[in-house]
């Protein structure tokens, strides 16, 4: 075994620690750390584990509601009460840099990591969603990453047996070389099944379960906490983590079985910073100490140093603190599932994390200080110069479109707007037999039944629950106005839930930004968090956890700031579940919300898909997002749905009114290669003072296209108005064309043609 290097200023820098941080370490432990200890500090104090640059910002998020059983930051994931003694646990997490280096394994292990976070809480994972960003598909390297990431997610989720029920994918040059892979998982449990990641009970043995530790993913947390450069990527290439979903499935089943015995005092997955993070965090939470001996840790590669064993991010491993005297139960259950396990240490009362190797102490650090006393920074923020330019943008230079024919086709074909079936058909979205609304509508809906809870399905019963999920973020809008754009991301998520018949109950966010040391990028982050926080308050959907991924840049600069928002809602009754597709010939089409926001000089075209696709411009102030209006809209729509009046509901987002209307005309695929269409005949000729391009393709907020039976139309419009939501009947469902009459003329498209462009666009690009 090679001797540890002596600590030099270079080594400290390589570990991503500043001189003052190093001084602080010395102050905390009262001496110089050895090399292993330095490694431990470096990962624990990385942005990924300590949130040192964002902790102060995150304090602004609302985190409480009567439903919150475990709040943000307390444990691996938050937990919300959903009634009848049931609860859900969910969280989103990024695996951006590993996916840039090795797309298949990077995304696969991202899924594996988030699933582990969920079952560590004692919950049975029941569905997954994801949010992805890539460069433009015309670039072959982008296609390689896209293909790899999607098949990696599919591989892990499908094999593990979790349905991937929703997601989003955008393509924009800013993500070239630095794709975003954000994976979300949700699990279900009873209130009394909540498990804790605390090392409780002095003298309790500490177990390691799962496959042997190798040199994979060495210091991945640190890697995620610096700019993605050719050098850092190269370094990481030598240490790619390989996921084993089969192993994780066994590990989950065994852990859930073990948790039900009551023999577990604490449980924690080994995610970022592996053994290091799990031991010191459990000790910190338990207010105890932990002592382990690395010689007892199963090892895959010969001659691993303590430094390597502690910092390895080998996948599918768990740390379990067992009630003393009940070791046999652990062994019996893990043997049943043919899973490797080892007793590696015990809980102490010293408050220290003591790591030995063959009896010799290699690290001896105060656990609580290590976990909780990372430095906290208030970074400098400065409004970027481009913001001014954006504010000065006007439409004067662009002539209004006389003929929208081709524009709609181009928008539907634009990969960010086009159908994502090439992606979700690779994901098993139906396993566990709970998926009521499959990918393709505004939000997914799954039911929670007896076998969704750990140990469930053996007779006992509870009323079925319906959970809706959506993930959204229009990062171009966030780039152009981080505050408004971020509010809008939350509002869009909530709107998608409302369209599906759900009331939001909680949020998890993934802040994907650039380097926080750059004041302009930090400003984006600060403004964005401000918007997100207000949004979550408005919808009474507290943040229950999330993830921060900074340093997302390529040599050309930072990515568009991308605060991915995933929101979870409850549908009260199965009759309320609503999809976006028109249902019957002759139904009335009603628009809730104003056609165009009259206070917006750009009439909704700022930052729109239309400007990007047709005019090659990523510019203009995006439409403002009024949270009160959005909340009223959501409540009204929900009321209409619950009264049984609404047959379909679809919100307007990228591509505006025309795109949303077209999407409502394409049904969910009835079966393989078998689309169903229902056309629409819409009259907007009253809107004489609005530009035609803004009318059709503007992205003003707060608009939903619904359909209802002809007889109910008047009632729906009246009720909406009564609630303070502008609303009007704009047309009728039927035929095989999409017809829009405007003050400028009549426009018509064959639905089959539009569908073909929209449905096959990504598949064709990937062929």
């Amino acid at each position: 075994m090679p001797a540890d290097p002596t600590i030099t200023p270079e080594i400290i820098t390589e570990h991503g620690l500043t001189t003052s941080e190093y001084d602080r370490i010395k102050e905390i432990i009262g001496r110089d750390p050895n090399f292993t200890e330095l490694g431990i500090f470096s990962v624990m104090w990385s942005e990924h584990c300590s949130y040192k640059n964002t902790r102060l910002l995150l304090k602004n998020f609302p985190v409480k509601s009567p439903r919150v059983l475990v709040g943000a930051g307390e444990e691996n994931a938050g937990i919300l009460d959903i009634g009848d003694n049931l609860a859900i646990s969910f969280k989103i997490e990024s695996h951006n840099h590993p996916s840039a280096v090795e797309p298949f394994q990077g995304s696969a292990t991202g899924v594996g990591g988030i699933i582990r976070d969920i079952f560590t809480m004692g919950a049975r994972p029941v569905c997954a969603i994801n949010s992805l960003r890539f460069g433009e598909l015309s670039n072959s390297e982008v296609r390689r990453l896209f293909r790899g990431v999607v098949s990696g997610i599919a591989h892990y989720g499908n094999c593990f047996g979790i349905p991937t029920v929703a997601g989003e994918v955008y393509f924009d040059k800013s993500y070239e070389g630095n794709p975003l892979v954000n994976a979300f998982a949700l699990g279900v449990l009873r209130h009394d099944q909540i498990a804790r990641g605390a090392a409780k009970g002095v003298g309790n043995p500490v177990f390691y379960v799962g496959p042997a530790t190798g040199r994979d993913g060495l210091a991945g947390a640190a890697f995620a906490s610096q700019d993605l450069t050719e050098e850092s990527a190269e370094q990481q290439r030598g240490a790619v983590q390989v996921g084993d979903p089969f192993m994780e499935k066994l590990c989950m089943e065994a852990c859930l079985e073990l948790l039900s015995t009551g023999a577990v005092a604490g449980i924690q997955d080994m995610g970022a910073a592996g053994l290091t993070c799990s031991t010191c965090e459990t000790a910190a939470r338990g207010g105890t100490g932990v002592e382990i001996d690395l010689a007892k840790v199963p090892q895959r590669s010969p001659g691993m140093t303590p430094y390597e064993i502690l910092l390895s991010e080998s996948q599918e491993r768990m740390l379990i603190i067992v009630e003393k005297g009940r070791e046999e139960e652990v062994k019996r259950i893990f043997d049943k599932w043919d899973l490797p396990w080892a007793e590696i240490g015990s809980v102490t009362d010293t408050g220290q994390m003591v790591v030995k190797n063959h009896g010799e102490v290699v690290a001896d650090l105060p656990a609580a200080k290590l976990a909780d006393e990372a430095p906290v920074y208030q970074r400098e923020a400065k409004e970027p110069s481009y913001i001014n330019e954006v504010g000065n943008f006007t439409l004067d230079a662009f002539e209004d479109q006389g003929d929208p024919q081709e524009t709609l086709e181009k928008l539907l074909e634009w990969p960010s707007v086009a159908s994502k079936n090439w992606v979700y058909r690779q994901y098993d979205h139906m396993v566990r037999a709970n998926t009521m609304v499959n990918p393709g509508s505004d939000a997914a809906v799954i039911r929670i039944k007896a076998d969704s809870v750990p140990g469930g399905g053996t007779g006992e019963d509870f009323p079925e629950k319906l959970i809706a999920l959506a993930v959204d973020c229009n990062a171009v809008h966030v780039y152009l106005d981080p505050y408004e754009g971020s509010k809008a991301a939350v509002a869009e998520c909530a709107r998608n839930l409302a369209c599906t018949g759900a009331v939001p109950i909680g949020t998890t966010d993934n802040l994907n930004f650039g380097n926080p040391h750059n004041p302009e990028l930090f400003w984006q982050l600060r403004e964005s968090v401000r918007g997100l926080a207000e949004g979550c308050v408005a919808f009474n959907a507290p943040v229950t956890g999330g993830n921060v991924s900074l340093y997302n840049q390529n040599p050309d600069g930072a990515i568009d700031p991308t605060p991915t928002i995933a929101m979870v809602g409850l549908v009260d009754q199965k009759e309320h579940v609503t999809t976006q597709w028109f249902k019957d010939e002759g139904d009335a089409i009603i628009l809730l919300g104003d056609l165009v926001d009259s206070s917006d000089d750009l009439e909704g075209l700022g930052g729109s898909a239309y400007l990007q696709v047709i005019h090659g411009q990523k510019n203009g102030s995006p439409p403002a997002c009024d949270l009160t209006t959005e909340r009223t809209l959501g409540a009204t729509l929900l009321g209409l749905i619950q009264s049984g009046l609404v047959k379909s509901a679809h919100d307007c987002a990228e591509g505006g009114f025309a795109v949303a209307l077209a999407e409502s005309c394409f049904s969910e695929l009835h079966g393989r290669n078998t689309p169903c269409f229902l056309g629409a005949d819409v009259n907007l000729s009253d809107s004489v003072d609005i530009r035609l391009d803004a009318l059709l393709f503007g992205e003003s907020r707060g608009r939903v296209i619904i359909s209802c039976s002809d007889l109910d139309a008047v009632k729906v419009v009246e009720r909406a108005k009564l609630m303070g939501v502008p609303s009007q009947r704009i047309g009728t469902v039927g035929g095989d064309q999409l017809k829009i009459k405007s003050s400028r003329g009549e426009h018509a498209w064959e639905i089959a043609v539009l569908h073909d462009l929209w449905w096959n666009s990504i598949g064709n690009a990937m062929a």
Partner: protein
Amino acid sequence: MPLDPWALNDVFQGELLMKAKVIITPKAEVLDPQGKTVQTALEQMGCTGVREVRVGKYVEVEMDGDHDTIKTKLSEYADKFLANPNIEDYRLKLED
């Protein structure tokens, strides 16, 4: 389409046809869950004495050209396409 072994006129038309083999294996330090699972399965079936199993891929390419050209060509494509350099090693073997 499988090659008709009797259609040797390809060769007589002045071109050479060779079979190249690319053996792709997971890198030594990379986890090979498949190999591990196969190893356990072998043991459980009673196949004793197995110390390690690694599972890789075997790609057989039949192509026109002489030894050297094929070697150069295939190495290039093995590097950038057939094998994933992040997690795999490969060996190229040509007939003869």
